[in-house]
């Protein structure tokens, strides 16, 4: 890992990235400075952790740019705070240099905001601050070495059992380590025990579940639930060096050997940090949580920003204006109520009531949309981490690849956006590792030596399509079949029945390991099934397209937000369903004789277009004849067909026949993760009377990528 990245030619800091950085840095610096002052008054581990995180996050953001003086100072500050967290340094000693760091970082941030670069003299000031850290932490290049010998402290509770197990160790001081890897660390490519392995002086090791095990039926093998405790004769500085990339997940203590550890003393000891295993990120968030990777190009922005949200001022203004309108609408309704109380005839009040209802309905829908908009963030915040990640990966693999980003301005719900980083990183690593051929192979194939990888985002109605495309060797269906057969993923006859698309889809099968050819890069991640699982968790889908020799495209289709959808309600028999209004072009009643049977289907002509007619009951697989239809004439079909004309795909019209139109509804559509695989369903919505309706997805209902209707 290089902590001071070389300048990155070809990646000039973009104005909007700098603006983003400045806004974030201001917040972090302000919050950390407040916390530091609190730390001066009392050493609270939680506050210390917050300061550490803020500094660490800020450092991560700075590392995206070429501001070495700022990076060095923040790095030293992080080391200092890390030493304080480990109990090797009194937190109070760090307050002054940390404040000096933040003060300098604050001034530099303003200079960056004004000029796009660090001010003159920043390097000299950085050197002065680094000297203070060196004085505190002991010698080390740029203050990075936290080699100060830790003062022997009391034995933390988590280490006392281990000490008893290890027996007397007269050889000198021991370092005890508690390491609770993040739940999603496997996904980031971490192998926690591989770090432990690098301690030559290991004398005792224990593994515990970090949280009580979940029942085996819900076993998630890619969620790490381990707490590692160990004792080693390695000095704290050496231990720290091994675990430096996961510093926020470890607690260390130095233990002076005693012939027989006194359990009372051990139990009375205070751990240097809260010794309760850190539960890690909320498992429900899955891979959404932030992580650090070896290249350190990532920041803890995600976790921190759970607490604060930067919002465009215009959006707040719009919200306030809507709230004002809503208050006015309620006042108008209040007048109607007053008239009703005064005895006005209900029939006379009806128009005013309707108008009030309509106005409040419109305003509340708008208010909801604006409020949800607060959660939207441009994908640039995620995409901007990739140029550096790609560079590192390509260099490791000795390949050449260029990355193009497209659609960074596309907005997406922040939870969804943040959950995308891990899967996308995996896809980019895969593309470089398995997709892009070595330069000479590319030359022979008539391709430019540098592979091209494109990361794209595009908004499509209420979804966002994010794709990773490479121009590499593509997937070889024959190889995939062979591998699937070897692994016994499918019975031979099922395998034989797969078409090419189905074959390519095999890469998503759990257990379709690419272990045989993993390199150091993608082998550190997990399989494509984890990428698809991540997409599903986010309420989306993941598909792949590949052409041998031409390249591979993996597409993630994700919900843009939890939307308040305007729905058209349609009835089939006793049931009602919601159709998103935005997909509905118009409603039509068409005499039955104008619907022509054409081969296997039916069609009619509307406004000069031939429009296929599909029965909703058939699309939903409803057994039509079992429905109570006694109210209809014996010939079964009404003389007029009620058609909802939907616009799908590239603008084609499709008519869907329903039994009746049943009104409109505005509602919050809840996705159905468990049913995500069922084409045609978008989710559920709660009606005013508490009933649950299924909401249909026009695109897949009539044959989008996963549908069957029009293939």
């Amino acid at each position, binding site marked *: 890992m290089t902590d001071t990245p070389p300048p990155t030619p070809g990646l000039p800091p973009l104005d909007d990235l700098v603006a983003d950085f400045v806004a974030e840095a201001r917040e972090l610096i302000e919050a950390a400075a407040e916390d530091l002052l609190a730390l001066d008054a009392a050493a609270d581990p939680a506050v210390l952790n917050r300061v550490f995180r803020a500094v660490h996050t800020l450092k991560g953001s700075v590392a995206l740019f070429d501001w070495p003086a700022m990076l060095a100072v923040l790095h030293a500050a992080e080391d200092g705070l890390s030493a304080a967290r480990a109990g090797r340094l009194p937190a109070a000693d760090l307050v002054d240099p940390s404040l000096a760091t933040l003060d300098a970082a604050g001034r530099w941030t303003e200079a960056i905001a004004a000029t796009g670069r660090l001010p003159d003299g920043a390097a000299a000031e950085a050197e002065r601050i680094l000297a203070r850290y060196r004085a505190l932490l002991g010698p080390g290049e740029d203050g990075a070495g936290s080699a100060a010998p830790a003062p022997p402290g009391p034995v933390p509770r988590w280490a006392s059992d281990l000490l008893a197990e290890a027996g007397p160790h007269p050889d000198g001081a021991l370092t005890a380590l508690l390491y609770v*890897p993040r739940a999603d660390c*496997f996904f980031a490519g*971490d*192998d*926690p*025990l*591989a770090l*432990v*392995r690098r301690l030559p002086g*290991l004398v005792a*090791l*224990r*593994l*515990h*579940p970090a949280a*009580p*095990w979940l*029942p*085996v039926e819900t*076993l998630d*093998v*890619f969620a*790490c*639930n*381990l707490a590692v405790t160990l004792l080693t004769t390695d000095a704290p500085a050496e231990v720290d060096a091994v675990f430096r990339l996961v510093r926020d997940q470890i607690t260390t203590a130095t233990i002076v050997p005693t012939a027989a550890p006194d359990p009372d003393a051990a139990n009375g000891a205070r751990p240097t940090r809260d010794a309760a295993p850190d539960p890690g990120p909320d498992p429900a968030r899955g891979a959404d949580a932030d992580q650090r990777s070896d290249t350190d190009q990532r920041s803890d922005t995600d976790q921190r920003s759970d607490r604060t949200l930067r919002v465009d001022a215009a959006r707040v203004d719009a919200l306030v204006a809507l709230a004002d309108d809503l208050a006015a609408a309620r006042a108008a309704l209040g007048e109607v109520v007053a008239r009703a109380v005064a005895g006005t005839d209900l029939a006379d009040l009806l128009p005013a009531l309707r108008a009030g209802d309509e106005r409040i309905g419109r305003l509340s829908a708008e208010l909801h949309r604006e409020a949800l908009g607060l959660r939207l963030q441009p994908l640039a915040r995620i995409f901007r981490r990739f140029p550096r990640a790609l560079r590192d990966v390509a260099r490791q693999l000795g390949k050449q690849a260029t990355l193009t980003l497209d659609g960074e301005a596309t907005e997406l719900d922040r939870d969804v956006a943040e959950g995308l980083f891990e899967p996308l990183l995996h896809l980019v690593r895969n593309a470089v590792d398995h997709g892009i051929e070595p330069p000479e192979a590319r030359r022979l194939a008539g391709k430019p030596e540098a592979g091209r990888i494109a990361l794209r985002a595009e908004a499509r109605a209420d979804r966002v399509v994010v794709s990773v495309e490479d121009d590499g060797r593509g997937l070889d269906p024959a190889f995939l079949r062979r591998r699937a057969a*070897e*692994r016994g993923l499918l019975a031979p006859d099922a395998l034989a029945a797969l078409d090419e698309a189905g074959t390519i889809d095999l890469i998503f099968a*759990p*257990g379709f*390991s*690419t*272990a*045989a050819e*993993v390199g150091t890069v993608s*082998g*550190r*991640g*997990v*399989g494509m*099934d984890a990428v698809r699982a991540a997409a599903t968790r986010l309420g989306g889908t993941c598909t792949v397209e590949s052409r041998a020799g031409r390249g591979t495209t993996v597409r993630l289709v994700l919900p843009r937000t939890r939307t308040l959808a305007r729905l058209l309600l349609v009835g089939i028999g006793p049931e009602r369903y919601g159709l998103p209004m935005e997909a509905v072009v118009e409603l039509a009643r068409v005499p039955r004789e104008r619907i022509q049977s054409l081969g296997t289907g039916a069609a009619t002509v509307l406004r000069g277009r031939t429009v296929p007619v599909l029965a909703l009951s058939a699309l939903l697989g409803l057994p039509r004849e079992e429905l109570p239809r006694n109210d209809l004439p014996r010939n079964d079909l009404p003389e007029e067909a009620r058609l909802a004309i939907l616009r799908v795909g590239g603008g084609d019209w499709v008519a869907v026949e329903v039994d009746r139109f049943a009104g409109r509804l505005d509602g919050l559509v809840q996705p159905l993760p468990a049913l995500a695989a069922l084409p045609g369903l978008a989710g559920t919505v709660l009606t005013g009377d508490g009933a649950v309706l299924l909401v249909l997805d026009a695109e897949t209902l009539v044959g989008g990528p996963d549908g069957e209707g029009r293939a």
Partner: protein
Amino acid sequence: MSVRRDGELIRLEGACPVEEAETLAALLLAEPGLGVEWSACTGLHTALVQVLLRLRPPLHGTCGDPFAARWLAPVLAAPRAPSEPG
């Protein structure tokens, strides 16, 4: 191939990367009585260690990875703590 079923045993062979955790868990869950033979295993990712720790299959042989043989085998062979569900 690094995780495979061989009669009444699941064999771990070579370096077992993180992806194999899924395969290992699937095999163990499908047939809980199976033992795991790991003498040809030259290294295993933490995710697999976690599967072994969670499902506690009987381990056969001495792991071919000295680190695992020295440090992980005792942990995986230790009796289950009373708080751990079966």
